[in-house]
């Protein structure tokens, strides 16, 4: 085999002056129990752990085993989570493997400026996820209570002819659906505006299907916010306020985090 054997797993990048006391504050073990250490190269340090030889040999087999991969991804997350509680970290995507320390150092040196700038963007901030759910039945009854526009009176349905009644009914159903959709969009935009005011930046995430979120209501928005630590209380207060003002109209907010700023470190640095 000509490909180098993968022996070092990398989790994320920190500033080297941040990585020095890693052992003291984040005594975590990484994939396959390897001790996590900071591998410094100039201004930057990669958080890495050694992969045991037996782990690297059947790596291709590991990739085909979902349970095994899931536990490895959990390890990857656990390390990043431990680090982000204490310091700024630029998370690497799962699967960054190097043949040795020199390989890591070479990659850091090659992309030093880009990594440093990316660290600047997430400096002192953590990622929070916010999902908005909507119970459309509740929203619908809320809309028909509050306005005349939705669920218009039965008088209109008592049109002269059956054909006319059908047409009016279809028109109203269409209008109701449009009103519901407009309300949801307004809620999403307004939430994004208020939450963004307490955040450094925001990113849209993929909506999850019911089989994943397991709720009866519908997920209408899934987003991530990069929030400076000193703004976190304000950010959380905004969500509480949003929940307060919108629960009676069928909306519900779900918070997750804090995460390493994965959604805000979303780019690829190619090899030479």
């Amino acid at each position, binding site marked *: 085999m000509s490909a180098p054997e993968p022996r070092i797993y990398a989790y994320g990048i920190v500033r080297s002056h941040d990585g020095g006391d890693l052992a003291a504050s984040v005594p975590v073990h990484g994939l396959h129990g390897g001790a996590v250490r900071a591998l410094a190269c100039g201004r930057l340090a990669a958080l890495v752990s050694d992969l045991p030889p037996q782990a690297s040999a059947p790596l291709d087999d590991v990739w085909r085993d979902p349970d095994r991969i899931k536990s490895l991804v959990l390890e990857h997350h656990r390390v990043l989570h431990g680090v982000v509680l204490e310091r700024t970290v630029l998370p690497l995507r799962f699967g960054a493997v190097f043949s040795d320390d020199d390989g890591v150092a070479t990659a850091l040196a090659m992309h030093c400026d880009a990594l440093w700038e990316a660290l600047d963007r997430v400096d002192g901030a953590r990622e929070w996820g916010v999902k908005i759910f909507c119970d459309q039945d509740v929203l619908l009854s809320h809309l028909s209570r509050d306005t005349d526009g939705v669920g218009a009176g039965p008088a209109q349905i008592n049109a002269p002819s059956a054909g006319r009644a059908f047409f009016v009914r279809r028109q109203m159903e269409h209008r109701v659906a449009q009103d519901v959709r407009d309300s949801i969009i307004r809620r999403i935009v307004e939430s994004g505006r208020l939450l963004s005011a307490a955040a450094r930046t925001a990113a849209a995430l993929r909506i*999850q299907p019911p089989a994943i979120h397991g709720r009866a209501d519908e997920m209408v928005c899934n987003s991530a916010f990069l929030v400076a630590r000193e703004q976190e209380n304000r950010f959380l207060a905004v969500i509480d306020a949003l929940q307060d003002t919108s629960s009676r109209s069928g909306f519900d907010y779900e918070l997750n985090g804090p995460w390493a700023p994965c959604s805000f470190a979303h780019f690829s640095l190619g090899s030479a």
Partner: protein
Amino acid sequence: MKVRIGHERNTAIADLLDRALSKGVVLWGEATISLAGVGLIYVGLKVLVASVETMHTMRAVHRADAPLLDERGA
């Protein structure tokens, strides 16, 4: 406490996978595991967490998933 913290197990794992496998910096080294391989794992895990029928939902939702939020994130 008004806003519930999402910690239902499947949801938490899905949130985690979405981040660990599709976000974060891709730093290529001389032995970096091929992303094609990682993509396959992701598909495998998704099938594990979601059932086949919901993959259709996921696709439909994804198509309708307009960028309503200001996407300034890198």
